C-alpha cells in the first residue's frame, strides 16, 4: 500500500514537473490572458462604475463617439463619429452649447445589425435615464440636462422631454444640446458615450426608447437588466462568457469590426486574488499580463522573459482629509472632545493653522519613497499632472518640522501647543499606502511635542463607510481616480462646496466655487489654465486636505507582448492592437 502511494506520488510529481518551462516560445499565441484582482460588478455600460467592469466595457467591447490616440489625452480621434467636433470645424457651436457628431456608416454590432444614429441617441438616453444609485449617469446628466440625478429622494424630477431634447438625431448626425457650456464635454463623450443597439436591448426586456415607459427602467438593481451579463457593442471584441464563479471573462474577436479585425482571437480576463498565484502563472507563461501592487514590485523584478513598464502617469491622487466639523456623539476618535490634552474639539481642524501644521509635518519624501518606492510625485493641489492647468511651479508644502511647530504654536490662540491634543486617525484596511501615510503623520506629529498624541486605526470598509457618512472621521485617508481627464473632474470633488469631500468635511469657499464655475463654462484653454492656477493657490492657502501623492503605475507582462500602450483613462488594457510574438 505504501509502495502504491509512493508510485502515485512520483507519477503526479513528474507530470507536474513537466510544466515548469524555461525560456520560452510563445504560449497560446492567439489568446491573451490577463490576471487581475477584483472582478467586474456589471457589464452594463450604463450601470458599471468600477475599474474591473470598465476594462471590459471600454474600449474593448463597447465604443464611444470619439476616442484617444494612444496615450495622448488632450486630443481625440474619431471613432463611431467620423469627425471630432471643434470650434474650427463648426461642429461645436460658438456659444458652446451644441455639439454635432456625424455618425459613421456601416458599423456592425456584434449581433450583425448595423449601427444607426438612433442607436447612439438611444444609448445616451439610456445611460442618463437608467441612473442607478451610485452609478455613472451623472457624468452625462450633469452637462446635458443640468441635473446630477433624475431623482430627488424617491421622486423622479426629470421628465422624458427634459432628457430627450438634449440628444437629437438630425439626418446622419447626433446633436447634443448642453444645459450650460462645458469645456470638458468632449472628454466625457470620449470616455462614456457607449453605443448599444436599441432593438437588441428592447428585445431583451430593456427600455424600448419610448417616452412613457422609461420610468419603469429607472434605478434598477444589479441583476435587473439583460445587459448586466450580456454585451452587444461595436468594439473589436465580443463577449463570449462571464463565469462568475471562476471569475473569468472571455472575449472573442469580432470579425465584422469596422476597422481591421484585432490580432488576438481570444482574450481571457481572470480575477485571481492571490499575488503568488498571479506571479507564478506569469512565470510559467500561462498569463501574459498580471496586475501587481507597488508593494509587491520587488517580487517580480528580475524575472526572466518578463517586461516591466514603469513610470506610467496616472490621474489618481491620494489625499488626507481634514474634517472641519466632526460629529462628537459617541465618537471614540476625538477623545474627550475638548482641547484639554486628551482629545480634540469637533471644530479642531477648522483652524487653518492646525491644517497647515499637519501639512508641514507630513514627510512627503519618505511617504513617496516607502509607500510607492519613489514612483510618485507630490501634488500642489487637486489639479494633478496630466490635467490642463497643472503647474509644477506653484507652491506646495514641504516636510518642515520647524514650520509645523510654528503653525501649531499659532493654532487656537496658542492653546494647542501648551495643552496638546489626542485623536485617532482612520483609514480603511487593505491599502498599504494609506497605512504608511497614517503612520508617517503619527510619527512626525508626535515627535514635535510630547503632548501631541495621534493614534491610528484601520477599519474594514463597512465601518469606514459608516464613519465618514456620519461625519465622525477626524483625519482620514481617501483618494480620487479619474472619470474623464479634465481638471473639472478633480476640482469639483475637492474644492467645490457641493463637491463630494467638502460636503463631507464641511469645507466651503465661495471664491473656489466661482472659479470652478467659470473654468467649467469656458472652452478657452488659456483662460481655464489661469483659473485653475488660482484654484490651486486656494488649495494651497486653505489646505482643506493634505495632498499627499500622485502615484504612477507599472505594468508587468511577458516580453512577447507587442503593441501595448498606456492610457490612464482605461480601466485596463486596450486589447485591439495587442499581439504575442
Amino acid at each position, binding site marked *: 500500500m505504501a509502495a502504491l502511494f509512493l508510485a502515485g506520488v512520483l507519477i503526479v510529481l513528474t507530470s507536474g514537473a513537466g510544466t515548469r518551462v524555461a525560456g520560452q516560445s510563445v504560449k497560446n499565441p492567439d489568446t491573451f490572458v490577463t490576471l487581475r484582482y477584483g472582478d467586474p460588478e456589471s457589464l452594463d455600460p450604463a450601470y458599471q462604475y468600477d475599474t474591473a467592469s470598465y476594462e471590459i466595457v471600454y474600449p474593448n467591447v463597447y465604443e464611444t463617439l470619439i476616442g484617444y490616440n494612444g496615450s495622448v489625452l488632450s486630443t481625440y480621434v474619431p471613432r463611431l463619429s467620423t469627425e471630432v467636433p471643434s470650434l474650427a470645424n463648426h461642429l461645436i457651436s460658438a456659444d458652446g452649447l451644441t455639439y454635432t457628431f456625424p455618425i459613421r456608416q456601416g458599423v456592425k454590432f456584434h449581433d450583425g445589425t448595423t449601427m444607426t444614429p438612433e442607436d447612439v441617441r438611444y444609448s445616451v438616453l439610456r445611460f442618463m435615464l437608467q441612473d442607478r444609485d451610485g452609478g455613472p449617469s451623472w457624468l452625462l446628466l450633469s452637462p446635458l440636462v443640468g441635473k446630477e440625478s433624475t431623482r430627488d429622494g424617491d421622486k423622479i424630477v426629470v421628465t422624458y422631454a427634459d432628457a430627450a431634447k438634449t440628444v437629437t438625431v438630425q439626418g446622419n448626425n447626433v446633436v447634443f444640446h448642453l444645459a450650460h457650456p462645458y469645456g470638458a464635454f468632449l472628454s466625457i463623450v470620449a470616455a462614456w458615450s457607449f453605443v448599444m443597439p436599441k432593438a437588441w436591448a428592447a428585445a431583451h426586456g430593456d427600455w424600448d426608447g419610448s417616452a412613457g415607459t422609461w420610468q419603469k427602467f429607472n434605478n434598477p438593481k444589479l441583476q435587473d437588466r439583460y445587459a448586466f451579463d450580456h454585451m452587444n457593442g461595436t468594439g473589436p471584441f465580443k463577449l463570449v462568457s462571464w463565469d462568475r464563479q471562476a471569475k473569468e471573462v472571455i472575449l472573442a474577436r469580432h470579425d465584422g469590426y469596422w476597422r481591421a479585425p484585432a490580432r488576438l482571437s481570444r482574450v481571457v480576463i481572470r480575477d485571481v486574488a492571490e499575488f503568488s498565484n498571479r506571479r507564478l502563472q506569469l512565470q510559467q507563461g500561462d498569463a501574459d499580463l498580471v496586475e501587481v501592487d507597488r508593494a509587491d514590485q520587488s*517580487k517580480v523584478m528580475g524575472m526572466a522573459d518578463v517586461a516591466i513598464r514603469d513610470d506610467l502617469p496616472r490621474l489618481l491622487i491620494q489625499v488626507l482629509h481634514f474634517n472641519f466639523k466632526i460629529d462628537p456623539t459617541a465618537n471614540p476618535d476625538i477623545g474627550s472632545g475638548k482641547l484639554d490634552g486628551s482629545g480634540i474639539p469637533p471644530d479642531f481642524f477648522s483652524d487653518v493653522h492646525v491644517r497647515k501644521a499637519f501639512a508641514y509635518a507630513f514627510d512627503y519624501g519618505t511617504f513617496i519613497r516607502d509607500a510607492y518606492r519613489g514612483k510618485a510625485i507630490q501634488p500642489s493641489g487637486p489639479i494633478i499632472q496630466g490635467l490642463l492647468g497643472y503647474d509644477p511651479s506653484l507652491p506646495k508644502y514641504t516636510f518642515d518640522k520647524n514650520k509645523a511647530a510654528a503653525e501649531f504654536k499659532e493654532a487656537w490662540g496658542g492653546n494647542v501647543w501648551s495643552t496638546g491634543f489626542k485623536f485617532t486617525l482612520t483609514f480603511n*484596511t487593505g491599502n498599504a499606502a494609506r497605512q*504608511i501615510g497614517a503612520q508617517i503623520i503619527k510619527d512626525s506629529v508626535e515627535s514635535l511635542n510630547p503632548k501631541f498624541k495621534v493614534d491610528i486605526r484601520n477599519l474594514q470598509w463597512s465601518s469606514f463607510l459608516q464613519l465618514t457618512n456620519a461625519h465622525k472621521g477626524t483625519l482620514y485617508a481617501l483618494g480620487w481616480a479619474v472619470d474623464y481627464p479634465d481638471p473639472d473632474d478633480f476640482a469639483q470633488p475637492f474644492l467645490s462646496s457641493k463637491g463630494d469631500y467638502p460636503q463631507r468635511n464641511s469645507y466651503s469657499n465661495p471664491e473656489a466655487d466661482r472659479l470652478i464655475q467659470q473654468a467649467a463654462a469656458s472652452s478657452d484653454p488659456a483662460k481655464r489654465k489661469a483659473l485653475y492656477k488660482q484654484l490651486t493657490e486656494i488649495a494651497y492657502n486653505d489646505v482643506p486636505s493634505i495632498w499627499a501623492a500622485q502615484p504612477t503605475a507599472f505594468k508587468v507582462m511577458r516580453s512577447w507582448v507587442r503593441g501595448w500602450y498606456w492610457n490612464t483613462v482605461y480601466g485596463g488594457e486596450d486589447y485591439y492592437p495587442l499581439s504575442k510574438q
Partner: protein
Amino acid sequence: MTAVRSSTPAIPLSRAPRAGRTVETGWHRTLRRFRRNPLSVLGAVIIAFFVVLALLAPFLAHPTERNPFMIPHSGYASDPHPPGPGHPFGTTEEQFDLYYGVIWGSRTAFVVALSVVATAVVIALLLGSISGYYGGPLDELVMRVTDIFLAFPHLILAVVIVAVLGQSVRNAVIAIAVVEWPTYTRLLRGEFLRVRDMEYVQAARALGGGDPHIIARHVIPNTIYPMLILASLNMGGIVITFAALSFLGLGAPIGYADWGQLISLSHNWIVGTAGDPFTFWYTLIVPGTAIFLFVLGWNLLGDAFRDVFDPRLQGSR
C-alpha cells in the same frame, strides 16, 4: 443511551475526589504521575516558558509606542528584512520587528485565550448549572440553543460577528467566546446532571441545604477537573482561531503584536523573489513556530491533565 454528539473530543467523566484525609495523598499521587510522563513535563515547560515570556515582555522587548502592544517599526518600506543587527528575528512587511511581535504576542495570546475561557466558563456556569440542576423545559431550551450554535461552522460565525461588530481584539474575543460557550455549557451541564444524583448531594438536600448553596459548595468544585481539561485543551484552539481571524483581516489591527497578525503580513512574501523563493522565510517561520509551540504546550498539558485526572485511560498509557 443516546449516541454521543459533541464537537470536541469526548471528555471522559472523572470520578469525584474522595473527601477528607485522602485528599493529600491524592494530590501527591497526581503530581507523581504527572512527572513520570515526559510529554506532560515538556508541555508544562513550554507553557512555563511562554508565561515567563509574557510576564517579562516589557523587559525583553522595550515598548516604544504609547500602546505597548503596537509593534515598533523602523521606517515604512514594504520589503521585509532578514534577521540582523537590531532585528534578531527580522522584520515583516512595513518593518515591524518580529522579535518584539513574538514576545508581546505571547501576552496577546494569553490575554485572548484566558479572556475567552473566562467568558465561556462564566456563561457555562450560569446556563449549565441552571440547565443541569433544574432540568425540564429549561434544560431543553438551553440544549436546543447550544444545538443551533454548534451547527454553525465555527470560523464563519466568528467572521460574521467580527465583521458586524468591527475589527478589534475585543470584538474578536467576543466572537470566539460566542463560538466556544456551547461546548463548555454542555460539559458543565453533563457534570451537573451526574453530580446532582449523587448520594452526598441528595443527603445535603435532605438536610435542608438551599439549592444555590448546594451548587456552590458541592456541585461546582467537583466539576473543576473536566473544565480544567477542556480549558487547557481549548487554549491552543482559541489562539489558532484568533490567528485565523487575524489572517483574514478581522482580528488584531495591523501592527498589533499578535502572531496571527504577523503571519497574515507574511502572506504575500512566501513566494520570495524571482530568484529565491525562500528569501522571506522568516516572516512565516518565526511567528509560525511561536504559535506552534504555544499550542503544542497546551495540547500536551491538556493531555497530561486528562491522563492524570481520568483513571479510565490509565491502563492504556
